[in-house]
């Protein structure tokens, strides 16, 4: 019996070690990025766009990228939502358990796994075809494509779980499928929808490969959808690539900003779902 207990204790130790490695890497990422980036963080970083000579170490900040990312992520999330909600409602309320619904879910899952660079390459091809230039609009379109499978499946997972008796009650009162879908099921799924939206927003803000080819880069805040737009991830990437130490420091600081934004989104997602769970029927 001792040998068996020993084996169990040994593997328990390995398990704890592995879990610690996982948690530890998370902490390591946060710690290193924040420690290196915080010193270079200043108010001007957040509130100014790059002035002349910024890339050589002179004044300015990355407001262009902050605002740019916010515009882009908001646009993509909104557009993505407009695409996701009908799809989720259709496969849950109209197509139910049919093979069509399963096939759609499979397609969405496959899309979910496609890396953003492929979406970027695809969008680039379309842009060449229509003769468009890199701009906020195309960045939004690309990120929407990238993000809508994630949003759709996230909402779907929650909607699948809502009890049938809810719909039964609504139909028994004489509502159409649309009314049941929009007024009852959506409300029940609200926490899930919110989480999905915040999740998508986080992806939209943080992804670089999709916007690399399609959104361009600029030092100013875009005034129209057809202007190129700077994004936070690219700000980190480009600034890191320069040989000038001050600019590299700013890259670290930009990384901190991005990281903190993602952290806040994650916390917001957890807190807000709690608030909205009031009306949900279990």
């Amino acid at each position, binding site marked *: 019996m001792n040998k068996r207990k020993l084996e169990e204790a040994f593997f328990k130790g390995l398990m704890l070690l592995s879990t610690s490695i996982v948690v530890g890497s998370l902490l390591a990422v946060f710690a290193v990025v924040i420690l290196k980036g915080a010193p270079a963080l200043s108010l001007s970083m957040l509130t100014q766009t790059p002035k002349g000579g910024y890339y050589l170490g002179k004044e300015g900040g990355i407001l262009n990228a902050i605002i740019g990312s916010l515009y882009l992520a908001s646009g993509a999330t909104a557009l993505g939502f407009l695409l996701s909600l009908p799809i989720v409602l259709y496969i849950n309320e109209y197509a139910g358990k049919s093979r069509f619904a399963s096939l759609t879910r499979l*397609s969405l899952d496959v899309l979910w796994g496609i890396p953003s660079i492929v979406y970027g390459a695809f969008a680039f*091809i379309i842009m060449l075809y229509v003769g468009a230039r890199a701009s906020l609009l195309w960045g939004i379109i690309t990120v929407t494509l990238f993000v809508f499978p994630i949003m759709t499946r996230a909402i779907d997972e929650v909607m699948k779980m809502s009890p049938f008796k809810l719909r039964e009650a609504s139909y028994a009162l004489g509502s159409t499928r649309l009314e049941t879908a929009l007024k009852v099921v959506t409300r029940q799924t609200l926490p899930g929808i919110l989480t999905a939206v915040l999740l998508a927003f986080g992806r939209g803000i943080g992804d670089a490969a999709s916007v690399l080819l399609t959104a361009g880069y600029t030092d100013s805040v875009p005034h129209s959808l057809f202007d190129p737009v700077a994004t936070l991830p690219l700000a980190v990437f480009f600034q890191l690539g320069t040989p000038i130490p001050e600019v590299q420091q700013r890259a670290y600081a930009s990384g901190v900003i991005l990281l903190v934004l993602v952290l806040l989104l994650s916390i917001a997602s957890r807190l807000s779902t709690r608030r909205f769970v009031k009306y949900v029927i279990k």
Partner: protein
Amino acid sequence: MNRRSKDIVASKLMLLATIFSSLVIFIMAFALFQRSSPILGTQSLSELFLTSSWHPTKGEFGFYPFVIGTLSVTGLAMILAIPICLLSAIYLAEYAPGKVRGIVKPLIDLLSGIPSVVYGLWGVLLVVPLIRHYVAPFAGATTTGYSVLAGGIVLAIMVFPIIISVSEEVFRTVPFEVREASFALGATKWETVKHVVVRKALPGFLAAIILGFSRAFGETMAVLMVMGNVAKAPSSLFDPAYSLPALIANNYGEMMSIPLYDSALLLAALILLLVIAFFSILARVVLIRVERRSV
């Protein structure tokens, strides 16, 4: 418009959106194929993928270094990640007290939300210097630190969340009765986990690994930032390498100015799409079967 017609119109629009979502992947594959056909016309597939010389200006497009680069960094990441993820998933599903799960699971979720440029940044700040100054000298090699090893480590951490969360869920679907049978025969918890739970959950676990592999295969920015991007197949862990996604990301600017370059890069994108789509479908189908059996 009365209620009934609203319902009908809405359902038609929703159907449209849904059909669109299933077609997107085919549209993308088609477009990429169209744009990469020029280069497919000039050389055979084996020529393209087995030659190593990559000189676009001279019209030489040997993809071999990039294929090896991608495979080696992804392979290393999986070798590092699989044991760690298996043990962590078992711990979280079978052993961890509720409170520990309640803390660790959100943290793992958080890991999955970190943007890849931040991972790349972290890699440059910590992993690359660590390899240059400590690991390589210890192993008797010299390197700038930008290497397959650096890419493998960063990539492994990036795939922890997906492998752990899918595996953990799969372990939890193993029904209680089967565990009870093992315990009733006098097995310890570990023996039950080792011989019964993991065995029952094996297909699902493999699916989780495949999903992790797909994620690692397509990862762009982080790998680009720490692997060195040298177009030569790496011969050791400490050599720099160049992955297919990094190739596309680094060179899209010159794509249009050199003949066939755009075709070549878009072929790389097509390969990524096809490989990842294939493995994703495989993994998902397995997971669907696992779910169906446990109901």
